[in-house]
Every structure is written in C-alpha cells, then in structure tokens.
C-alpha cells in the first residue's frame, strides 16, 4: 500500500513539479519519503555505516515509532530529516523539499515545518519558557500580537502556564521537555520529531510526554518518535519501524517491541 502511494507521489511530483499548489496534494499522500537511503561516515579513512538502504514512507497524521538499539540508525534518520546531515546515497524527501538538494539558505524554512524534541531538551538557557517558545514564532517573523496569544496557549496545553517566566535551570526535566514540546508545536509544523524524548525522564514524566505527543497527533500532526522504551512502544500499539545496524528490519502497523 505504502509503495503504491510512493509511486503515485513520484508520478505526481514529476507531472506537477512546477506547481507548488499541487505539491500540497502529494503531501497529503506521503509526507516523508526515504528512498534507498544510506549514510556513511568517514573517520580517518575508516568508514562506518549509520544507515544502509533504508526505504520507508510516512503519511500525514501517522504516529510512527522508530525502534532500535543505540547506534541502530534512529538519530541518523532524525538528522537526515532536519537536514543536519545529507544522505550519502538515496533520496530523502520531506513535503515539497528534497533534502539532498536543499540550499543552506532554505534550511530555516524546512525546519520551521518540523518540530524537534530531543533527549537533552535543547532549550535556550538564557531565555524564559515563554521566550523559548516565542523564539520559534519570532524566527518565522510572526507578529508580536500572535506571540502574545499563541505562546500562553501552548504553554497552557503542556501545563506550564504558571512557569511561563521561569528559566530552564529553574525547571525540572519533565517541565523542560514540556517547554520543548510547546516550542515544537507552536508553529503548527507538519511533523513532530521526537528523538528519545523520555530518555532523561522518570516513568511518570515519560508517560506525561507520551500522552502529550498522542494528543498532538490526535490534533492532526504527524509524529515520529525515536525510542528504545519497550513499554511505551507496546502501549502505543501504532506503526513501528524496527532498525538494526542501520537497516530497516521490520516495518509493521500495530507493531510491538521485538528484541532480536
């Protein structure tokens, strides 16, 4: 089924490549396409494989988990998506962007369509929660009035309205991650990518984060969750892409965490 979508998308993109309007039609079919993607790193002429011949497609409104041990290639997929790295071989397509060909100048535009959440939160330490969330709107050139309306709403949704003017160092891990989620979703991105978002959190906070991700997904945003937390995967009962040594070894709906 997915392969069919992908073929359709390719055909459509060839046919309508000039019309950006039509590209949004394609995006409705598939948001993220990985086509035989390989990524090699060369360190002192010694080549390591981070990802090998990975192909998959993620459709809008899906909730997809990337599962695998450390070093299986989860983070590489995330880095390729936000164009922090470029693939050695194959094609990575996000919406109307071809990550292989994207220019440095266009990167900010791509990244404003993606909300990222990391294990280490990556909040700006010198900005308050409010400013951290507002920053994502500011970089997109949004009006001050928008910021004053939407930022408190987003912080309220993650339950941090009373910590709006606290700095990250005054927040707990779970709170920091919730600020990061508010920041990730404030721009109404097409997809939210969460790279081990619960890795540094205790179980209660971890579940809180997962519930928030599910809620965001219900509201219509695609979520890509990279994790190795077995309980969470089994609870979610959504599509799971299983990675091992840089290869996709299993890709199934209603997947379970399976140790190989």
């Amino acid at each position: 089924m997915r392969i069919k979508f992908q073929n359709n998308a390719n055909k459509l993109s060839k046919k309508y490549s000039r019309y950006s309007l039509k590209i949004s039609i394609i995006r409705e079919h598939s948001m993220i396409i990985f086509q035989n993607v390989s990524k090699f790193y060369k360190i002192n002429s010694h080549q390591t494989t981070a990802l090998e011949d990975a192909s998959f497609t993620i459709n809008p409104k899906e909730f997809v988990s990337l599962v695998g041990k450390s070093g299986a290639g989860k983070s590489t997929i995330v880095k390729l998506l936000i164009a922090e790295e470029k693939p050695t071989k194959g094609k990575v397509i996000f919406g109307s962007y071809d990550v292989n060909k994207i220019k440095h100048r266009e990167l900010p535009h791509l990244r404003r369509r993606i909300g990222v959440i990391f294990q280490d939160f990556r909040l700006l330490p010198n900005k308050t929660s409010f400013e951290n969330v507002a920053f994502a709107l500011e970089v997109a050139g949004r009006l001050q009035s928008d910021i004053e309306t939407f930022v408190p709403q987003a912080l309220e949704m993650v339950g941090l309205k009373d910590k709006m003017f606290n700095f990250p160092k005054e927040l707990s891990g779970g709170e920091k991650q919730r600020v990061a989620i508010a920041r990730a979703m404030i721009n109404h991105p097409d997809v939210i990518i969460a790279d081990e978002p619960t890795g540094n959190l205790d179980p209660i906070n971890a579940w809180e984060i997962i519930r928030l991700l599910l809620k965001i997904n219900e509201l219509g945003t695609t979520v890509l969750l990279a994790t190795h937390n077995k309980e969470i995967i089994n609870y979610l009962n959504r599509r799971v892409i299983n990675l091992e040594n840089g290869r996709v070894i299993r890709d199934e709906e209603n997947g379970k965490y399976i140790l190989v």
Partner: protein
Amino acid sequence: MLTTLFRIIKYGFLGFWRNGWLSAATLSIIILALMVFEGMMIFNVLTKIALISIQDKIDISVYFKTNTPEDEILQTKKSLGTLAEIKNIEYIPRDKALENFKNRHKDDPTIAQSLDELKNNPLLASLNIKAHNPKDYAVIADYLNKASFKGWFEKVTYAQNAVVIERLGKIIDTAEKGGFILIIFLTFIAVLITFNTIRLAIYSNREEIGIMRLVGASNSFIRGPYVVEGIIYGLIAGIISIIIAGPIVYFISPYLKIFIPEINLWSYFVSNLFILFGYQSLFGVGLGVISSSIAIRKYLRI
C-alpha cells in the same frame, strides 16, 4: 522586517545583560585593548609635537662680517632662497640682533651696563636658516661653503653644531619609524586580544546557536544579536576607557611638561575628547562587529 530588526536589537541587549559575567569579562578585555589604542593615539600626537619642537630648535646661522653691505646679505638670502631644502630664512640685521640680545638679558644689569659702555654694536648681522628636514643641513652647509659670497661670512654655526644636528636628525628619524612600528604592533595586539575574547564568548554559546538553527532561525537572525552585542561592547568600552584615561592624563600632564614645554597633554585631551571618543568607539564597535561576525560563522553551518 522592522519587527525582526527590533527583535535582533532586543536580543542583543538581553544577551548582553543575561550573560552578565561573560559580558563583564569580555568588556574589561576590550577596555584594556581600547586603552592601548588610546595610548597609541596620544603617543602618536605627543611624538609629533615633540619632534616638531626639537626640529624647530635646529638651524644654521650665517654671521656676516661687520663691514658687509646690506645688499650683499640680501643677495645671499635671495640666492639661498633658490634651494629647495630651505624652509625659511630670517634676516637679522645688527640693530635687531642687539635689540634681541638686550631683550633676552634685560633682567641682568651687568650685561645691560656693559652694553651701554660699548660705543659700537658688537653683534653681527646674520641669516637664520631653517631646513625642512634635519638631514638637509649638511647640504645647506655644503652650499654655503662653496658659495662665491663666502668671503663675507664671519662664521657658519653648522660647523660647530654639525655633530649635534646630525645626531638629532637620526634620533628624530628613529623615533618616527619606531613609533610607527610600535603603534602597528600594539594595535595588532589589541585587535588580536579582542577578537579572541569575543571568539571565546561566542564559543561558549555554540550550543545555543545550534539550537537556534534547529528551530529554524535564519543565519542573520542568529548573527544579528551578536553583532548588536559587539556594538554595545564597543560603545561601553569606549566610554569607560575615556573615563579611566581622564585622571591618568591629568596626573601625567604636568610631568610631561617638564620634558617638553610645548606639550599640554591635558588640554589636548580635553579639547580632543570627542574625537578621541569617536575614534575609540569606532575602533571598538568595528572590532566587536567584525570579530563576532567572523567568530560565529563556524557555528552557523549546520
């Protein structure tokens, strides 16, 4: 566009304020660098004034025999006037020379008395010659030596002072070159220190810069606040270094006057305060802006 500019400026100030300690450390280094720069500017002016005042003291005087007709002297003056090396020739007739002499010694009654006792004016008419360059005196002396009207000369002072004049000329030359090299060297050090300090300050922010890129900030939006911070550094450092320099100059000025009477450092400082401040803040702001733009480039590649 305007909102973005406003945000960049706001974050520049916010970053400066919230990174208090780092800003203070960076600022103090830039103040030191600016004070070196300021010291250089003042040193430059001082050496110039000092050298000019020394140069002004060097001259050659040609004394004419008492029986020389005035026409001959004026003829000699005219002929000397054709030499390109000569800046200025002053003719001092015998009466004038006497008058000058009396004036100079009017506080000394014995000299006045002895002058009165003399019936004739004992002083000689002279031509006082000043050259553009201390090195030229040798050429002028040579010319005088070979001149056809040499017969009228009683004496030429160059012969007596040749060694001193030559040495002074060399000292002036070296002071000019040395001062120039010193200025370049110290300015280079000031630039290097400031650049490295700002680079370290930005290095400590490299993760934040990465985060900003990930959230979708454009390079100019990230770089902007750092450039604004650079401007703030430059301006504040300019003001503070002037404030620090004030009392120092005030204190040094009288001592300097003992060595070179023509120099009044304090009045120079006061009358050029705004120019000094302008140069300094320009130097500071330029350094801050250029350093931060260069230092941040590396972290904007992701």
